[in-house]
């Protein structure tokens, strides 16, 4: 509940204040967002499974974001930034889909 409200509040704040993305953050922000979304979907699924742990959620959220950004950073340094970003997005996308499927089974019983 708090998470949903905070998410909505964050979106509203972002829309209202219209900040610009700093240049150094530009390549990492999309990946970080996807990684955080993965963590959120995992958290929702764990909640529905009844095994949610706040500490695990917080740690996984932060580590997801940091690791995703690090991978993109490394890829940029190695000259395979585009490919590695795609790889990260694909993997995270698969995980999000898996979690979404589990959530769906919980919600719709199907």
């Amino acid at each position, binding site marked *: 509940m708090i998470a949903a409200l905070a998410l909505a509040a964050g979106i509203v704040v972002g829309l209202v204040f219209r900040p610009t993305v700093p240049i150094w953050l530009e390549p990492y922000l999309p990946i970080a*967002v996807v990684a955080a979304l993965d963590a959120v979907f995992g*958290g929702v699924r764990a909640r529905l499974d009844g095994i949610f*742990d706040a500490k695990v959620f*917080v740690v996984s959220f932060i580590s997801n974001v940091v690791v995703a950004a690090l991978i993109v950073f490394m890829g940029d340094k190695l000259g395979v930034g585009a490919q590695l970003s795609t790889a990260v997005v694909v993997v995270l996308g698969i995980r999000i889909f898996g979690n979404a499927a589990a959530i769906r089974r919980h919600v719709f019983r199907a």
Partner: protein
Amino acid sequence: MASKNEDGTTPPDVGTAEVTSRPVRRPRLAQRYRAAALIGVLTAALGFAIAVQVRANSQSDSLSNLREDDLIGILDNQNARGDRLRQQIAELEQTLRRLEGSGDRNAAAKQQAEQDAAALGVLLGTLPATGPGVAVTITDPDHKLTAEDLLDVVEELRGAGAEAIQFGPVRISTSTAFTTVGDAVAVDGTVLSAPYRVFAIADPKTLDTALNIPGGVAAATRAAGGDLVVDQQDTVTITAIRALPSPKYASPAPH
């Protein structure tokens, strides 16, 4: 967002880091609040980031999302395009200079031609003329002056360098003829009667000297019982003009 203390078994095909398998101890109330606050902050940050990213993605130009390699390619393309355009500019500027140069030459040639035409018009008698000269009055009470005498006046003026001459109402040119009509004199078919008024443009002193030379036209006129008075003027204006002669048989020979 309280955590439920379930049995903690790992469900199959979980595969997510968030799903923990260890038994969860019931946290204290303060800890639960802290966790909730932390989760709220994190999800709020996520929402904020989503909004920012979506906005940046939709508003920014396509370049900001491209990677270094693509940008280098685009930059190379732009540089090549810029070089091409600069080359075009140089070529066009050269053309412009060439056209301007030829325009200047054309204008100069036109001006020269106009000056030539004006000078020729004055000499041919097709244009009015003005300048220093003399106004000559010839009286002939006895009607003794013949066409030859009057022609002598014109010849004397020509000899003294007159550039434009008007005899009575007639502009004198190269083809002017003095003829005798009855006991009067006609210039180019226009019958004149004394006193005759003659205007000539050249150095006034030279013209005066030429007309009054001993044994010259002035003396001849006085011998015939008339008189010839020369009036030197700073500005003589000759308004009589002739039609431009159009050669019927002669045409300019190629150089």
